[in-house]
């Protein structure tokens, strides 16, 4: 049974091409399609990916308008029914604006956009982007954002930690979680967060930009393999 993944394109989305390519090249028998932002029904899909970009120019809060597009309500229903929804960068911001993930992503503490490689360490509960990652391993993935500083109220952050919903943290090349390796000032070096079911995940780094050896070391591939494994229900 082949996997069916939809990649949403809002006006201003700009990472859809490489996201579709990375899904296609990593998951040999997946059917990957671009979804128009006016679409209202996602029932025939196994997973939805909200890729990066500047939806609607991000002229209001990043992701705020996208969350109010017709497909927003459909994504909310799809997630509530247990569907896998992964938001990358602008997609993470959209998931927060949809109310599907807690916290906020505010301007980087340098007040500058940052594009470069960061290192990540998986932890927490098995999620739709981390369930196939090795605990203790370090993954090198590009980031590119101006508003990626994760922020939440103290009690919310504590609840996330207690329930294993923090699934990715920034670390150095040796795997040490340390503020010097934090590209944006995120509280607790948080790079990725899941909902309680692990089926909705948001992450600031872009695994689709390092999905082969020509453009990096291929560390991004396992994030997409996790998506397939989680859909197949094989995640532990």
């Amino acid at each position, binding site marked *: 049974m082949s996997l069916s993944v939809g990649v949403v394109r809002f006006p201003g989305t700009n*990472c859809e091409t490489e996201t579709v390519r990375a899904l296609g090249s990593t998951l040999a028998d997946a059917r990957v399609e671009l979804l128009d932002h006016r679409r209202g029904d996602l029932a025939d899909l196994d997973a939805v990916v909200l890729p990066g970009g*500047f939806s609607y120019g991000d002229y209001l809060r990043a992701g705020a308008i996208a969350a109010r597009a017709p497909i927003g309500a459909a994504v909310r229903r799809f997630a509530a029914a247990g569907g896998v929804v992964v938001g990358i960068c602008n997609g993470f911001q959209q998931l927060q604006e949809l109310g599907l993930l807690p916290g906020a992503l505010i301007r*980087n503490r340098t007040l*500058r956009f940052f594009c470069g490689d960061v290192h990540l360490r998986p932890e927490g509960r098995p999620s739709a982007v981390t369930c196939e990652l090795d605990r203790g391993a370090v993954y090198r993935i590009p980031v590119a954002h101006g508003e990626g500083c994760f922020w939440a109220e103290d009690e919310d952050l504590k609840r996330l930690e207690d329930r294993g919903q923090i699934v990715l943290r920034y670390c150095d090349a040796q795997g040490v979680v340390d503020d*010097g*390796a934090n590209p944006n000032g995120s509280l607790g070096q948080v790079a990725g967060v899941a909902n309680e079911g692990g089926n909705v995940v948001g992450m600031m780094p872009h695994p689709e930009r390092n*999905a082969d050896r020509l453009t990096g070391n291929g560390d991004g591939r396992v994030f997409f393999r996790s998506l397939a494994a989680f859909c197949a229900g094989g995640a532990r």
Partner: protein
Amino acid sequence: MTTTATNSCEARSKRFDSAIVNRLRSLAEVEISPEMVRAHGLDEGEFRDIVAILGRQPTLVELSIFSVMWSEHCCYKSSRALLRNLPTTGPRILQGPGENAGAVDLGDNLAVVFKVESHNHPSFVMPYHGAATGVGGILRDIFTLGARPIAVLDALRFGPTADEISRTTFLGVVDGIAGYGNCIGVPTVGGELHFDPSFARNPIINVMAVGVIEADALVFGRADGPGNPVFILGATTGRDGIHGATFASDVMAGDGGESRPQVQIGDPFVGKEMMEAVLELTRTDYLVGIQDMGAAGLTCSSVEMSARSGTGMVLELERVPVREEGMMPHEIMLSESQERMLAVVEAGSEDRLRELFAGRGLVCEQVGEVRDGGRLEVRWHGRTVADLPVGPLADGAPIVARASAPPAGWRGDAEPGPLPEPMPGVEETLLRLLASESLRSRAYVFSQYDHTVRGSTVLRPGAADAAVLRLAGREDAIAATLDGNSRHVALHPRAGAAGTVAEAARNLACVGARPLAVTDGLNFADPGRPEVFWQFAESVTGLAEGCRALGTPVVSGNVSFYNETGELRVDPTPTVGMVGQLERADEVRGMGLRTAGDAVALLGTNRGRVSGSEYQLLVDGRPSGSGPGVDLEAERALIELLVRTAGERLLRSAHDVSQGGLLVALAECCLASGDDLGVEVDEVPGHGELRADALLFGEEGARAVVSHDPQVGGRLRELATELGVPFHPLGRVVPGRFRVLDLVDLSIQEMRDVWCPRAGVADFLWPADDGRAGG
């Protein structure tokens, strides 16, 4: 921008139309005075030509149209004659100069489309918006041909940032490039950054964009088929940028503040939607031709499209969707509002076109029709406000013969000032050079640009001499670079310009790419000064020599004159954008050392030429002499060798020797290595014959430092000998230290600390950015 908003804006503006028509009636009666002619940037002779062409006095609208079409910016009246000397043809050239951008054949029905443009004047007045619209404008030039933009590069020149104005300009320009480029989703992958007092009030902002398209799908800016409708696409028309083209054809008087209405404001979100819609449109069978509305907006696009097809156009200006109330016809004709295109489609396809653009919330409005007869007729509520022959507007512009003379006392063989005595310490000098604004790490800048979006960036900025991008579904890759050397050109324009071409080609060859073709951005001061025009003429000669010797024709380009303010004139700056091709993407190599134990070698000959070098500037405070000279035959051989080694996969890294000389080049190979690899150099050809500082810091070209598996040294030497390139083993790659003869022994970390200070993984520091001046 929603359609509803556009409509209500239109409705409001209609109420003002009758008032304007009345005002226009009185204006039509206005006698054109000599003051009005001068205010339009035209001289008496040009005005006489206009009267002769028309057989009558022009109307005010007609005078405006002539003034922009005959401005330096649009018609290249000072430069056209000389630019004809550049080589522009070759077996792989699909489109040379004259279109929105040039196109080169990559084989298997793929073409690479590229062009460089300047946005110097606007970027001084409003750094953020000037630079942002520079990016937007050059991207439109690329996708107008139907090509998908895949990369942006920018060559930036400012005054040293200890000066407050230079600092503000620098930070604002970087922010503007990031703001537009990051949002529209085209990676900014390369370029250069240079600081010199000559740019303190006239920054140079040259932006180059690269795109790809199936070779048989190229679309051109034509207006064929009388009766076909003419559409404005994209955004509404406002008052921004009116007379921007004329503005760019004049010197600036002071701080530029009074020029603000002439700077356009960009909207990358509309730009992105526009790009997607136009790329879709260029794949339809009903598109006849399309052109970006850049400089001189509707005027230039309608005239050029008609001229290419030998047709004419009638435009009905009241149909143009405007964003401001009470806009006059000449304002609509001259507006440089961004994110607009002019398109001609087959009659009968109007509804399909409207559906395509309205679906994205973009303006799509018929404003006229193609006509026979070669005339541009501009109407306003049924009244003809301009009726002009297209030919003389587009091609009949006057060629201005400029006086040309070298600066008093200039000699092509001037000796540089004497080297300092005693010789400064080499280690200390190296560290000072690595910390200087000219040579320090550019990570502070390029980390603010999204250089990995689209997931195709094989070599990122800082990793190599050129950017490399893979091509979807293909084994080959393209490489791109954008280079200038204003200091060398100032000392010797002809050799400096030829040397700039050579440096660009060397940069491509270092990553393993074969150079294909050039786009040139020519930035000079007022061409009315004989010494400036001489610099220009000599530079064009040097460019032509370099391009001929290296087999890289010029396919597109841009000239920016009048880069001077008060007493400050820019150093002459021909910027060379060059694109090359790697047969296989995985043959690529960067500048960083890869493996301890590898051999390190120099390709080329050390001559110790310090004239115009960073070292000379550091120890003498000013450049002197006639530059390092250029040896195009040696450059050609070196480039061939570097390209051939890629096919045979002989090198692990390659880096050309340029600003800072051999020692800085070697240091950069260490600093670009991921693991703090260093080198141990125990022989340097020329050591003992040349003074050590001249040997290590001289900037003559035709050299590269490479690292390779010691086992392939024999084959490398053989190939170098066959191609006539001197091959000199220097030493080996070692962990952690930088040792050169008995002159330098530093740790890589202490070099990195001065070269690229940072407070965290994403917090690069620049001396002038004390206050977080983003936004």
